[in-house]
């Protein structure tokens, strides 16, 4: 029993006061709530809607919009529900005449300076102010004076501002301060002259800036690339996930006709809470440009010839039949779904090829045990840990959503963060232990000053960036890290805690590991035939000049430019597929729009090719291929679920020496990391705006201040 208590103790807060609920009355109905609840939360629990603008579940309470006022018995005046805690026996009245009048009055004041431009405002139809003024506002306006006008601010190319519409809820200010960790916004002036912005004119910039648009309750901050392209009631929304981020955040894809118009985050407490980063949100317009929409064959003069599927597959089959399995190499791309990976694996094995995903810059991990390559303490584990050691990942660029969670944990739980690798402003305080691998060896020896802190930690977490494991000495570095994990008790099966985590940056790699694909890159091998399954981020020297290269994918990027034969594939919004994130969570991506031109889902292409080769794969539709996936790994068809696995530890024996080189900054430009974002005009604008010195070859006429 004692053991069990120890095991579960960290799931509960210790304060006994929190355990005693108190009773309050909302409109006469008794509800029992925790004593740290606000009146607004109590009302929500009672199922009573209280209108509000400035209150947001994930931000601090500010209580400045005054919209949530309610009447409380025995109190002379109405009170703001969001900032007032409940007390025992409190009687809250949300439907009294006093409340109605007060709400109407607040609404009148809010609208006094809010422009009446709903017909030309992008927020129209999904605007909190519009909805609430229709419900709670007076029917007639009495304000005949001129309205004020406010100058617009520069929030970068992703957020369009019409600051005249701002109602000073300060959500954007609090978001930047608390979630993004960049305290750059604030209010200036008082009363009618209040303005939200930077005090000294400056561009506002964060990797999470797109979330401002969702937070702003009015049309002051709107989605700039989406401006004036659709109204919310015209959109068809598909609930999907985004595989371009390795945590596969839940997203909502809004389409009109056959086109994606915008991407919004969905709530998923264990993955992305409520945020997605700007590349997830805005890079989708790369799916309309540089797309491959027909089968192409490179001719001798370097030009391309368009082929039908039948001809293309026959050309490919002829080429495959000339090559033996040992001379083939298959490379799996960044955003590959499990279906495609399984079909690829089955086909290549049938052809006698064992070299799948054997690449020079591949992640050197063994697929034998899931705890060797997944994020074992889960993304939500960040909030339980008391120490986080990040190795070789700049979290702010590698995974801004995880970074926001780490920031939250540093502020709320006092999480202690150490970093080995390139130091940067991570939006929270952290200790920089060193830039090279020697910091790791020092930690292992116990000579590093941080070793003591690591020793004392109760629930330490080590987060290894996948890029470290892609180094030439990746295996050796990994075994040093595992030794550290062993030495400092990072894995505690008795407390159900495994603090060794790998932060992948490609879902394709996780999918490959999940279905047990492993192979060694042989630098001496000279493959004659290479199949690039959506792979764009490879090293050119991995492909011999005389090899026949097939690229099956979405964009005319690195892969296609080297290919002899190009097969158009469907992107993640154009096919249904399952993806595994760095947590080991399997999530389902949904088809939102049809694929352009001849493009087909990747597993369908592989299935068709297998038949032309006379090695027919035994599945004809998604359901059948998912049965096949279940044969290989039954947990891959349990969606939105992390299959529990053994926490007992299997270390990898050391191979080779750790070379003491610097763990470099791997992401050069956050806005362009893959084929989709490289083709995206919005991301190009961001690169130019946020990274001018690095991303332009031209000396600006007017110097950038």
């Amino acid at each position: 029993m004692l053991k069990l208590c120890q095991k579960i103790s960290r799931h509960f807060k210790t304060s006994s006061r929190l355990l005693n609920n108190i009773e309050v009355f909302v409109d006469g109905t008794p509800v029992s709530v925790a004593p740290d609840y606000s009146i607004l939360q109590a009302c929500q629990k009672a199922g009573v809607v209280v209108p509000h603008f400035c209150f947001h579940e994930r931000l601090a309470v500010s209580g400045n919009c005054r919209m949530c006022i309610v009447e409380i018995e025995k109190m002379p005046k109405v009170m703001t529900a969001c900032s007032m805690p409940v007390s025992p026996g409190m009687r809250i009245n949300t439907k009294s005449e006093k409340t109605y009048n007060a709400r109407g009055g607040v609404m009148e004041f809010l609208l006094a300076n809010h422009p009446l431009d709903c017909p030309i405002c992008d927020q129209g139809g999904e605007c909190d102010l519009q909805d609430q003024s229709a419900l709670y506002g007076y029917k007639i306006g009495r304000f005949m004076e001129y309205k004020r006008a406010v100058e617009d601010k520069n929030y970068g190319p992703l957020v369009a501002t019409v600051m005249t519409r701002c109602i000073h809820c300060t959500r954007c200010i609090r978001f930047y301060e608390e979630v993004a960790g960049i305290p750059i916004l604030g209010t200036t002036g008082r009363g009618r002259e209040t303005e939200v912005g930077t005090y000294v004119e400056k561009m506002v910039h964060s990797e999470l800036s797109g979330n401002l648009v969702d937070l702003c309750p009015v049309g002051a901050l709107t989605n700039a690339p989406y401006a004036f392209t659709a109204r919310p009631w015209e959109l068809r929304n598909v609930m999907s996930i985004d595989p371009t981020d390795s945590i596969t955040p839940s997203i909502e894809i809004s389409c009109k006709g056959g086109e994606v118009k915008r991407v919004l985050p969905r709530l998923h407490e264990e993955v992305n809470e409520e945020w997605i980063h700007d590349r997830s949100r805005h890079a989708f317009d790369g799916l309309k440009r540089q797309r491959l929409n027909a089968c192409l064959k490179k001719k001798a003069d370097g030009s391309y010839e368009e082929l039908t599927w039948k001809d293309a597959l026959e050309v490919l089959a002829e080429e495959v039949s000339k090559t033996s399995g040992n001379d083939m190499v298959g490379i799996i791309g960044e955003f590959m779904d499990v279906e495609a990976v399984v079909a690829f694996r089955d086909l290549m094995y049938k052809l006698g090829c064992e070299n799948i995903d054997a690449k020079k810059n591949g992640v050197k991990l063994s697929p034998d045990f899931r705890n060797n390559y997944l994020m074992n303490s889960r993304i939500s584990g960040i909030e339980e840990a008391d120490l986080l050691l990040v190795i070789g990942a700049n979290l702010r660029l590698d995974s801004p959503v995880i970074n926001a969670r780490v920031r939250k944990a540093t502020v709320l739980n006092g999480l202690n963060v150490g970093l080995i690798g390139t130091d940067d402003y991570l939006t929270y305080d952290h200790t920089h232990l060193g830039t090279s691998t020697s910091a790791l060896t020092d930690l292992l020896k116990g000579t590093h000053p941080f070793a003591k802190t690591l020793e004392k930690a109760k629930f330490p977490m080590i987060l290894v960036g996948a890029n470290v494991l892609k180094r030439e000495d990746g295996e050796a570095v990994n075994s040093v890290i595992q030794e550290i994990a062993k030495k400092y008790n990072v894995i505690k099966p008795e407390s159900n805690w495994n603090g060794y985590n790998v932060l992948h940056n490609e879902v394709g790699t996780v999918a490959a590991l999940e279905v047990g694909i492993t192979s060694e890159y042989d630098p001496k091998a000279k493959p004659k035939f290479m199949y690039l399954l959506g792979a764009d981020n490879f090293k050119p020297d991995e492909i011999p000049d005389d090899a026949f290269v097939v690229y099956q994918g979405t964009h005319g990027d690195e892969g296609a430019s080297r290919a002899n034969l190009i097969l158009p594939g469907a992107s993640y919004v154009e096919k249904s597929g399952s993806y595994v994130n760095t947590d080991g969570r399997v999530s389902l991506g949904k088809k939102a729009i049809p694929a352009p031109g001849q493009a087909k889902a990747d597993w369908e292409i592989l299935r068709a090719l297998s038949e032309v080769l006379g090695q027919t794969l035994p599945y004809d539709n998604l359901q059948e291929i998912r049965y096949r996936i279940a044969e290989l790994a039954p947990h891959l068809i349990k969606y939105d679920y992390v299959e529990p696995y053994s926490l007992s530890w299997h270390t990898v024996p050391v191979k080779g020496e750790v070379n003491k080189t610097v763990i470099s900054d791997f992401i050069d430009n956050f806005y362009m990391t893959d084929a989709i974002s490289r083709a995206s005009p919005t991301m190009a604008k961001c690169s130019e705006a946020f990274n001018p010195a690095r991303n332009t070859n031209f000396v600006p006429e007017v110097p950038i201040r």
Partner: protein
Amino acid sequence: MSLYFGRGSNNITCRTAEIYTHNRLTPSKTLAEAKIQHLKFYRDACRRMPYILKNSSITNQIHPTQAKLNLATFLRQSLFARNPRVIDSLTIRGYDWLHSSIWCYNHHHNFVHMIMNPKIDDRGYNYLDDVRYANSSSFLKDFYSGKGEANY
């Protein structure tokens, strides 16, 4: 509804007899002209589809949108025609059908094959597919021809 959209008709809800006055139905000189007349007929028919369905009491059997799509499928069967006079004759036949449907002459017979369940065949092309994709499984046939069901 009084006599076909009543007196307050406008360019959208014009009177039936105007079908003939607005569309002169003179013999077309070029293919483009003929095609445009044919398209105009299709748009006229679509515009009147809710009325036709209501008048024939089949609103519970088919939705106007589906009826429009079925009509389009039916008309596409004659897409192969390249002779303007042939297309003109199809257009005139269409207007005859539209007129009689609206005035409730002999319309039910027409609906059965035009709006309710047009018989779609591949006009001989399926035979071509059979030869071209011989020895292929049904998956591969669908893959090549793009006819397969979408996988969700």
